């Protein structure tokens, strides 16, 4: 065995016996470094003949190749070992709190407005809006509520001027007036929005939300009104059947007028909508008064139809079991978090209204 072969064997043994990555690296420098074994062997052959050179160089290269293979395997092993040790040490208590993902919430009133829009969209209603500040004419006069009439007492109005000509709308009904005045029949709209009455106690807030509905065409009658509301209530509460009662009532802007009650029962302190022997008043409606149509430049001899008004906050309270109306506007972080909706939870017709 030549010195060369012996040296090679030595290195091989040395390598095979080591497990330490650092040692492997130092042996690697010893062999392949600038003044390492391989280079010095190559230097030695400078003075030899071409044939000898060729022969020895080929031997060196062969040995170099072999050693490199071992190195590769060795360093992989060593790396693996290091990694294993590192992994062993990397023990994290994964029950520690995760990094907070901050997703916000959509207010239940907004969610319910979206649900309502979704339902009415299906039966061809489109959404209209009107300003919060209204004039006396749109809020009362055009809606057949005469000056100095006790019917006006039912609305505790906020006024913006001493002459009581500009006010905060007391209902969403002025949107009916605006819609009819700016367009031509047929009309088939809903109008959700903020409404205001100077009233504040357990069950009243000075601002609340209403939904107005209006459907005017050549032959829309009370049967359509009943069908429309029945459909809406069923869809909204996501029940198959609903018990409904129409009671005659009075609103200046509709004739005949009705209040609508839905049946419910209480089970384990929870209101179950749909059946039961108790009644809950939820909305007012009626056939649009011919005077209103006239005031809105619609010919009552040719057109007729219905209108309704629903308290949105109340619907939200019923559907989502919220007890206190005032809490809607108190912005309590806990409340918003609890009753608010995931913004990705968009009510749709194909997916359904609620999760």
């Amino acid at each position: 065995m030549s010195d060369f072969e012996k040296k090679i064997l030595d290195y091989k043994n040395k390598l095979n016996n080591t497990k330490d990555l650092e040692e492997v690296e130092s042996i690697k420098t010893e062999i392949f470094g600038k003044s390492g074994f391989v280079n010095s062997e190559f230097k030695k052959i400078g003075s030899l003949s071409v044939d000898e050179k060729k022969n020895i160089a080929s031997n060196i290269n062969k040995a170099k190749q072999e050693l490199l293979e071992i190195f590769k395997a060795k360093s992989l092993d060593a790396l693996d070992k290091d990694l294993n040790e590192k992994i062993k040490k990397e023990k994290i208590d994964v029950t520690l709190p995760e990094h907070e993902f901050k997703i916000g919430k959509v207010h239940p009133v907004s969610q319910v407005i979206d649900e309502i829009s979704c339902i009415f969209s299906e039966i061809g209603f489109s959404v209209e809006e009107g300003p919060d500040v209204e004039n006396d004419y749109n809020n009362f006069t055009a809606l057949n509520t005469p000056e100095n009439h006790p019917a006006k007492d039912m609305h505790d109005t906020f006024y913006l001027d001493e002459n009581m000509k500009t006010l905060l709308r007391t209902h969403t009904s002025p949107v009916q007036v605006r819609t009819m005045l700016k367009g031509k029949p047929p009309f088939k709209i809903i109008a959700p929005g903020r409404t205001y009455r100077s009233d504040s106690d357990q069950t009243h807030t000075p601002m609340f939300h209403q939904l107005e509905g209006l459907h005017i065409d050549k032959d829309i009658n009370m049967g359509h009104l009943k069908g429309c509301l029945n459909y809406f209530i069923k869809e909204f509460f996501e029940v198959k059947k609903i018990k409904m009662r129409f009671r005659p009532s009075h609103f200046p802007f509709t004739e005949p007028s009705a209040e609508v009650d839905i049946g419910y029962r209480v089970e384990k302190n929870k209101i179950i909508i749909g059946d039961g022997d108790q009644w809950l008043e939820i909305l007012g409606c009626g056939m649009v008064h011919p005077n209103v149509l006239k005031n809105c430049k619609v010919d009552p001899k040719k057109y007729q139809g219905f209108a309704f008004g629903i308290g949105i906050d109340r619907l939200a309270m019923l559907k989502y079991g919220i007890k206190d109306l005032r809490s809607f506007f108190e912005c309590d972080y806990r409340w918003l978090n609890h009753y608010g909706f995931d913004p990705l939870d968009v009510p749709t017709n194909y997916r359904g209204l609620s999760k």
Partner: protein
Amino acid sequence: MKFTKDWLDDHLKTKKTESQIVEKLNNIGLEVEKVEPIKNELSDFIVAKIIKAKKHPNADRLKLCDVDIGKKDTVKVVCGAPNAKDNLLTIYAPPGSTIPKNGMKLEVSKIRGETSYGMLCSESELKISNESEGIIDLNYKFQSKIGKPYFQKKNNSNVIELSITPNRPDCLGVRGIARDLSASSFGSLRGTRKSKIKKEIKHNIRVKIEKSKNQACSIFGSCIIKNITNTESPGWLKNRILALGLRPISAVVDITNYVMFDLNRPLHAYDIDKIKNRIIIRNSKKDESLAALDNKKYILSENMCVISDDEGPLGLGGIIGGKRSGTGLNTKNILLESAYFDPEITRKTSKKLDLNSDAKFRFERGIDPHSVKEGLEVAADLVINICGGKVSNFDIQQIKKHETSEIKFDPSIVSKTVGIKIKTNDVIKILTDLGFNLKKKGKHFNVKIPSWRPDIFGEIDLVEEVIRIMGFDNIKSIEPDKKRTKPTLNFYQKHFHLAQRSVASKGYFETITWSFTDEIVNNKFRENIESIKIVNPISSELNVLRNSLYPNLIYYLEKNLNRGFGDQSLFEIGPSFTGKKPGQQITVICGIKKQYLNSEDSLKRTDLIDVFHIKKDLIQTLLELGIDKDETKIVDKTPSYYHPGISGTILSKEGNYTLGCFGALHPKIITNTYGFEIFLENLVNYKSKNKKIKQSLIFSDYQKSDRDFAFLVNKSTKAQDLIDVIKNIDQSLIKNIKIFDVYEGENIPSDKKSIALKVTIQSDFKTLNEKDLNEISQKIILTVEKQVSAKLRS
């Protein structure tokens, strides 16, 4: 409006039970508010037991008793009876009750320094017997009845309370209710009582209605009844008065009240002996005053309708009588008034004086002008029956005729409105039963409206009468058409909904706050908008319409801070007002973010917020709403409620649409809080004028190169200016510019800063070589140095 079944029976012959009637009333639009046991005058008095009777500390003859009245706690009652002792079962009268013997109303009072809650009663005080020695001593059997009324209810009838809509004054009388029920086949209406009274004396008080402008009184009927003995009302009348929730006063007063609720015919009784000379119905003069029966003095303004004599006002027409001519138990001679007052003027007067009464409630809704005589007849009849006396002839002054109006009515309109076929005969029957008079005229009917129905004006009102009596249950529901001809949401509304959810998805909780706010706080946010005051605010803290969403958001943010919630992100989307006219409002999405640093937090926070967090939220929301960053520009001019140095405004590139603002809120308003606003109408208007079509995707596969530059610029130079300049050098080659460092401080002149940026250069047509890259780099350096007076740092 309250009544009892037996009262109803006076007017309606029916076999229906109370509960059937209640259901029917609901179905025909007379909403039953509640049905509750009649309140007896004596139901206040309850069985009680003296637990402990101690000597009164300040009076020898009085005792201080702990009394068990069946409630959780005993009550303290001071008692003078010698027989008051421990464990005595007796009868207790609570504060508020009236002692039958002397009509005294009990109040919580102090007797010799000790508070007494109510009274323990003797038999004579309760009019059980004449025994007045000591308090009642009940036998042991009453032990189980402590807390229960001592007197058994005489009948078990209920009071039915209706909530009558303002259009139905006729149902503010029992007769009107009976009429509606009879029309709904719930019995037959009894005929009106025939007057049998003899008019034996002469009406000798001159009555005149002054014919002035705005005279509210058009009819004034009266009669005189002399030599009466005003007394307590008989039991039946007392019970009716009690059923109404009123206290019986005297026969004369009770009778006028009774007729008002029975026939919806308000009346008033005057003591003639206190009237000076004559009665004149006139408009009031300024600063006249009236001491009214409610024990208040009213200063009148001009043109209120007063009933007056030569001395001055005796009462306010249709509203309230005056004390001066009021009747009492010793009144001998009375004048009964039955009149008609105009609804509007009556309402105006009562509003001005803030004065409500049962009479006013009726007159402002409209009383049957033809009921003047009937009212006098019924009341006079009752007075002479109960109090005796002699009645005069009726004096009816009238200055205006009240004609019954007629409507031309086509019965087919009923079916057309309600959607089901209704026979003309049914229509005729219902309307006739309700008192309408129908005459056929060809295809139409001429319908005479009964004088007690001021709410009926046109055909559609008759439709309502028919369908409410027939019952809404008969209307068949028609399934809605599932057809959509118009989009549900318009362009603006789509953005509203998207914006709402977009902001919510960035960690903000949506709130809904009042559209009004506190003027003092609002002033910090209203900029140059004039304050929009509410004339009648609900409280002084909510007295103006908001000119910004910030005041309320900040208010609630701070409330939550007090509740212990440090980190908060809140937002609202809603109106902000720019003027007091309808439509002077904009929709703003306003977000607010507060970080609360707790020194106890041992884990070092890595999520400290700064202006760039709020900017990120805003930019990302705009992006989701379809506005790319390169369509916008940011300037540092913001409203004064932002920190002047740490805030910005986002405009459309051309600067003509203000899309939003962001920044730290002014530290004088709130510290360490960031906020943003998006002006939705501006955004939508910008978008609708700048509709984009998504371009097809083109990208270059040639190699791209990054070149880093650091420029020394003036401190006031904005990063955006640098980017804009570079971008415009060669848009086909410069694909991206990213600022990665801004440095001020050591090695740099104090008025300068260094901005380092990375420019990505790529050609769509070839691989750029070193020469190309150097060329463009040189161009960048030269242009920047020239246009923003910058200097390349070596």
